[in-house]
Protein backbone atom coordinates (compact mmCIF):
# COMPACT_ATOMS: atom_id res chain seq x y z
CA UNK A 1 0.00 0.00 0.00
CA UNK A 2 2.11 2.80 -1.29
CA UNK A 3 -0.61 5.39 -1.18
CA UNK A 4 -0.69 7.67 1.81
CA UNK A 5 -3.76 7.70 4.01
CA UNK A 6 -5.85 10.84 3.77
CA UNK A 7 -6.56 12.75 6.97
CA UNK A 8 -8.79 15.64 7.81
CA UNK A 9 -7.85 17.11 11.17
CA UNK A 10 -8.30 20.77 12.06
CA UNK A 11 -4.94 22.50 12.55
CA UNK A 12 -6.23 24.73 15.35
CA UNK A 13 -8.87 24.51 18.06
CA UNK A 14 -9.87 26.14 21.33
CA UNK A 15 -9.30 24.33 24.60
CA UNK A 16 -12.25 22.04 25.30
CA UNK A 17 -13.47 22.01 21.70
CA UNK A 18 -14.85 18.78 20.28
CA UNK A 19 -13.26 18.40 16.88
CA UNK A 20 -14.14 16.01 14.08
CA UNK A 21 -11.55 13.77 12.43
CA UNK A 22 -11.99 12.00 9.11
CA UNK A 23 -9.62 9.38 7.71
CA UNK A 24 -9.51 7.48 4.45
CA UNK A 25 -7.09 4.64 3.78
CA UNK A 26 -6.54 2.93 0.40
CA UNK A 27 -7.05 -0.81 0.76
CA UNK A 28 -8.88 -3.49 -1.25
CA UNK A 29 -10.46 -5.04 1.87
CA UNK A 30 -10.62 -8.45 0.17
CA UNK A 31 -13.36 -10.31 2.02
CA UNK A 32 -12.19 -13.89 1.49
CA UNK A 33 -15.64 -14.78 0.18
CA UNK A 34 -14.96 -14.02 -3.48
CA UNK A 35 -13.65 -16.48 -6.05
CA UNK A 36 -11.28 -15.80 -8.95
CA UNK A 37 -12.00 -16.73 -12.58
CA UNK A 38 -10.79 -20.31 -12.01
CA UNK A 39 -13.22 -20.67 -9.11
CA UNK A 40 -10.49 -20.59 -6.47
CA UNK A 41 -11.31 -18.60 -3.35
CA UNK A 42 -9.39 -15.32 -3.11
CA UNK A 43 -7.76 -15.23 0.33
CA UNK A 44 -8.98 -12.67 2.84
CA UNK A 45 -6.86 -9.54 3.19
CA UNK A 46 -8.40 -6.71 5.14
CA UNK A 47 -7.33 -3.98 7.48
CA UNK A 48 -8.48 -5.43 10.77
CA UNK A 49 -7.53 -2.64 13.14
CA UNK A 50 -7.48 1.14 13.16
CA UNK A 51 -6.27 3.16 16.13
CA UNK A 52 -6.05 6.88 16.76
CA UNK A 53 -4.00 8.17 19.68
CA UNK A 54 -3.51 11.73 20.93
CA UNK A 55 -0.23 12.44 22.72
CA UNK A 56 0.10 8.72 23.32
CA UNK A 57 -3.41 8.16 24.72
CA UNK A 58 -5.83 6.05 22.74
CA UNK A 59 -8.88 8.10 21.79
CA UNK A 60 -10.58 5.96 19.15
CA UNK A 61 -10.18 2.38 17.93
CA UNK A 62 -12.06 0.26 15.44
CA UNK A 63 -11.97 -3.51 14.94
CA UNK A 64 -12.78 -4.01 11.28
CA UNK A 65 -14.40 -7.04 9.71
CA UNK A 66 -14.80 -7.94 6.01
CA UNK A 67 -18.08 -6.01 6.00
CA UNK A 68 -16.18 -2.70 5.98
CA UNK A 69 -16.05 -1.24 2.47
CA UNK A 70 -12.87 -1.04 0.40
CA UNK A 71 -10.77 2.03 1.28
CA UNK A 72 -11.93 2.17 4.90
CA UNK A 73 -13.30 5.53 5.95
CA UNK A 74 -13.82 6.68 9.53
CA UNK A 75 -15.28 9.74 11.11
CA UNK A 76 -15.12 10.38 14.85
CA UNK A 77 -14.75 13.14 17.41
CA UNK A 78 -12.11 14.11 19.95
CA UNK A 79 -12.27 16.62 22.79
CA UNK A 80 -8.97 18.53 22.82
CA UNK A 81 -7.53 20.18 25.95
CA UNK A 82 -3.89 20.62 24.88
CA UNK A 83 -1.84 21.03 21.77
CA UNK A 84 -0.37 17.81 20.52
CA UNK A 85 -0.14 15.15 17.89
CA UNK A 86 -2.65 12.69 16.57
CA UNK A 87 -1.12 9.39 15.49
CA UNK A 88 -3.06 6.98 13.32
CA UNK A 89 -2.28 3.32 12.60
CA UNK A 90 -3.93 0.85 10.25
CA UNK A 91 -2.98 -2.85 10.57
CA UNK A 92 -3.84 -5.39 7.89
CA UNK A 93 -4.07 -9.20 7.96
CA UNK A 94 -0.47 -9.52 6.75
CA UNK A 95 0.73 -7.46 9.68
CA UNK A 96 1.51 -4.45 7.52
CA UNK A 97 1.17 -1.30 9.59
CA UNK A 98 0.54 2.04 7.92
CA UNK A 99 0.91 5.10 10.09
CA UNK A 100 0.23 8.81 9.80
CA UNK A 101 0.54 11.79 12.13
CA UNK A 102 -0.90 15.25 12.38
CA UNK A 103 -0.46 17.99 14.93
CA UNK A 104 -3.00 20.42 16.34
CA UNK A 105 -2.50 23.74 18.11
CA UNK A 106 -4.93 24.25 20.98
CA UNK A 107 -5.23 27.74 22.47
Amino acid at each position, binding site marked *: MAEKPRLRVPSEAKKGD*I*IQIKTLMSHVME*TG*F*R*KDEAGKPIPREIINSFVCT*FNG*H*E*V*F*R*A*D*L*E*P*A*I*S*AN*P*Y*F*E*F*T*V*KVEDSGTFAFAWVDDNGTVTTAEQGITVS
Partner: protein
Amino acid sequence: MSSLTRRSALLLGAGMTLTLVAVDNSMATPAEADAEIAKFTGGKAAESGKIAIDLPEIAENGNTVPLAIKVDSPMTTDDYVSEIRVIGDANPNPGIVRFHLTPMSGRAEAATRIRLGGTGTVTVLAKTSTGKLYAERKVVKVTVGGCGG
Protein backbone atom coordinates in the same frame (compact mmCIF):
# COMPACT_ATOMS: atom_id res chain seq x y z
CA MET B 1 -38.15 11.03 10.97
CA SER B 2 -39.06 7.78 9.24
CA SER B 3 -41.80 8.67 6.84
CA LEU B 4 -42.87 5.33 5.43
CA THR B 5 -45.98 5.67 3.38
CA ARG B 6 -48.37 2.76 3.16
CA ARG B 7 -47.26 2.11 -0.39
CA SER B 8 -43.53 2.11 0.29
CA ALA B 9 -44.05 -0.07 3.37
CA LEU B 10 -45.86 -2.60 1.21
CA LEU B 11 -43.13 -2.43 -1.43
CA LEU B 12 -40.46 -2.87 1.21
CA GLY B 13 -42.31 -5.90 2.56
CA ALA B 14 -42.59 -7.42 -0.90
CA GLY B 15 -38.89 -6.84 -1.56
CA MET B 16 -37.91 -8.50 1.69
CA THR B 17 -39.95 -11.61 0.94
CA LEU B 18 -38.29 -11.95 -2.46
CA THR B 19 -34.83 -11.57 -0.99
CA LEU B 20 -35.46 -14.13 1.72
CA VAL B 21 -36.29 -16.66 -0.96
CA ALA B 22 -33.16 -15.80 -2.91
CA VAL B 23 -30.73 -15.85 0.03
CA ASP B 24 -28.24 -18.69 -0.22
CA ASN B 25 -26.58 -20.63 2.57
CA SER B 26 -23.49 -18.44 2.72
CA MET B 27 -25.42 -15.60 4.36
CA ALA B 28 -25.55 -15.29 8.11
CA THR B 29 -28.96 -16.14 9.46
CA PRO B 30 -30.89 -13.94 11.87
CA ALA B 31 -30.10 -16.62 14.46
CA GLU B 32 -26.35 -16.14 13.91
CA ALA B 33 -26.80 -12.39 14.18
CA ASP B 34 -28.75 -12.92 17.41
CA ALA B 35 -25.92 -15.08 18.74
CA GLU B 36 -23.45 -12.28 17.96
CA ILE B 37 -25.75 -9.79 19.70
CA ALA B 38 -25.95 -12.07 22.75
CA LYS B 39 -22.14 -12.25 22.82
CA PHE B 40 -22.06 -8.48 23.27
CA THR B 41 -24.97 -8.10 25.69
CA GLY B 42 -24.28 -11.26 27.68
CA GLY B 43 -27.98 -11.97 27.36
CA LYS B 44 -28.96 -8.81 29.26
CA ALA B 45 -31.76 -6.59 28.01
CA ALA B 46 -30.72 -3.44 26.15
CA GLU B 47 -32.47 -0.10 26.35
CA SER B 48 -33.79 1.47 23.15
CA GLY B 49 -34.15 5.13 22.25
CA LYS B 50 -30.54 6.13 22.99
CA ILE B 51 -28.92 5.37 19.65
CA ALA B 52 -29.54 7.20 16.39
CA ILE B 53 -28.59 5.17 13.31
CA ASP B 54 -28.11 7.01 10.05
CA LEU B 55 -28.38 4.45 7.24
CA PRO B 56 -30.25 4.73 3.94
CA GLU B 57 -33.58 2.89 3.81
CA ILE B 58 -32.71 1.71 0.33
CA ALA B 59 -29.07 1.15 -0.64
CA GLU B 60 -28.54 0.83 -4.37
CA ASN B 61 -25.01 -0.47 -3.98
CA GLY B 62 -24.33 -2.82 -1.07
CA ASN B 63 -20.57 -2.40 -1.56
CA THR B 64 -20.49 0.92 0.18
CA VAL B 65 -23.34 1.97 2.42
CA PRO B 66 -22.74 5.04 4.61
CA LEU B 67 -23.38 4.38 8.29
CA ALA B 68 -23.34 7.02 11.01
CA ILE B 69 -24.05 6.35 14.67
CA LYS B 70 -24.80 8.76 17.49
CA VAL B 71 -25.36 7.65 21.06
CA ASP B 72 -26.92 9.88 23.69
CA SER B 73 -24.25 10.02 26.42
CA PRO B 74 -22.61 12.72 28.58
CA MET B 75 -19.17 11.25 27.67
CA THR B 76 -17.58 12.17 31.00
CA THR B 77 -14.89 10.12 32.74
CA ASP B 78 -17.59 8.65 34.99
CA ASP B 79 -20.16 7.87 32.33
CA TYR B 80 -19.22 7.32 28.72
CA VAL B 81 -19.94 4.97 25.86
CA SER B 82 -16.96 2.61 25.75
CA GLU B 83 -17.98 0.31 22.94
CA ILE B 84 -20.25 0.33 19.91
CA ARG B 85 -20.93 -2.92 18.04
CA VAL B 86 -22.53 -3.18 14.59
CA ILE B 87 -24.10 -6.47 13.51
CA GLY B 88 -25.97 -7.41 10.32
CA ASP B 89 -27.97 -10.48 9.34
CA ALA B 90 -27.46 -10.26 5.56
CA ASN B 91 -23.69 -10.81 5.30
CA PRO B 92 -21.65 -14.04 5.36
CA ASN B 93 -20.47 -13.04 8.86
CA PRO B 94 -22.81 -11.25 11.24
CA GLY B 95 -20.06 -8.96 12.62
CA ILE B 96 -19.53 -5.67 10.78
CA VAL B 97 -17.41 -3.43 13.00
CA ARG B 98 -16.65 -2.57 16.62
CA PHE B 99 -15.73 0.92 17.83
CA HIS B 100 -13.92 1.65 21.09
CA LEU B 101 -14.47 5.14 22.47
CA THR B 102 -13.01 7.01 25.44
CA PRO B 103 -14.02 10.04 27.53
CA MET B 104 -11.66 11.96 25.22
CA SER B 105 -14.06 11.24 22.35
CA GLY B 106 -16.19 14.15 23.56
CA ARG B 107 -19.26 12.83 21.76
CA ALA B 108 -20.37 9.23 21.24
CA GLU B 109 -20.31 9.39 17.47
CA ALA B 110 -18.72 7.39 14.68
CA ALA B 111 -19.24 6.96 10.97
CA THR B 112 -17.90 4.60 8.33
CA ARG B 113 -18.94 2.82 5.13
CA ILE B 114 -20.12 -0.76 5.25
CA ARG B 115 -20.90 -3.66 2.92
CA LEU B 116 -24.30 -5.28 2.97
CA GLY B 117 -24.84 -8.54 1.09
CA GLY B 118 -28.57 -8.12 0.79
CA THR B 119 -31.67 -6.73 2.40
CA GLY B 120 -31.60 -7.24 6.14
CA THR B 121 -31.50 -5.73 9.59
CA VAL B 122 -28.53 -3.81 10.94
CA THR B 123 -28.31 -3.82 14.73
CA VAL B 124 -26.25 -1.26 16.64
CA LEU B 125 -25.40 -1.97 20.26
CA ALA B 126 -23.62 0.28 22.73
CA LYS B 127 -22.09 -0.35 26.14
CA THR B 128 -21.40 2.39 28.68
CA SER B 129 -18.69 2.55 31.32
CA THR B 130 -21.45 2.26 33.93
CA GLY B 131 -22.59 -1.07 32.46
CA LYS B 132 -25.68 0.12 30.61
CA LEU B 133 -26.63 -1.48 27.29
CA TYR B 134 -28.37 0.26 24.43
CA ALA B 135 -29.68 -1.19 21.17
CA GLU B 136 -31.32 0.02 18.01
CA ARG B 137 -32.06 -1.64 14.67
CA LYS B 138 -32.68 -0.55 11.15
CA VAL B 139 -33.85 -2.46 8.08
CA VAL B 140 -31.96 -1.67 4.88
CA LYS B 141 -33.16 -2.79 1.48
CA VAL B 142 -30.19 -3.54 -0.77
CA THR B 143 -30.61 -3.53 -4.53
CA VAL B 144 -27.15 -4.91 -5.44
CA GLY B 145 -25.35 -6.95 -2.76
CA GLY B 146 -21.79 -6.14 -1.74
CA CYS B 147 -20.19 -9.51 -1.08
CA GLY B 148 -19.06 -10.53 -4.57
CA GLY B 149 -19.77 -14.05 -5.65
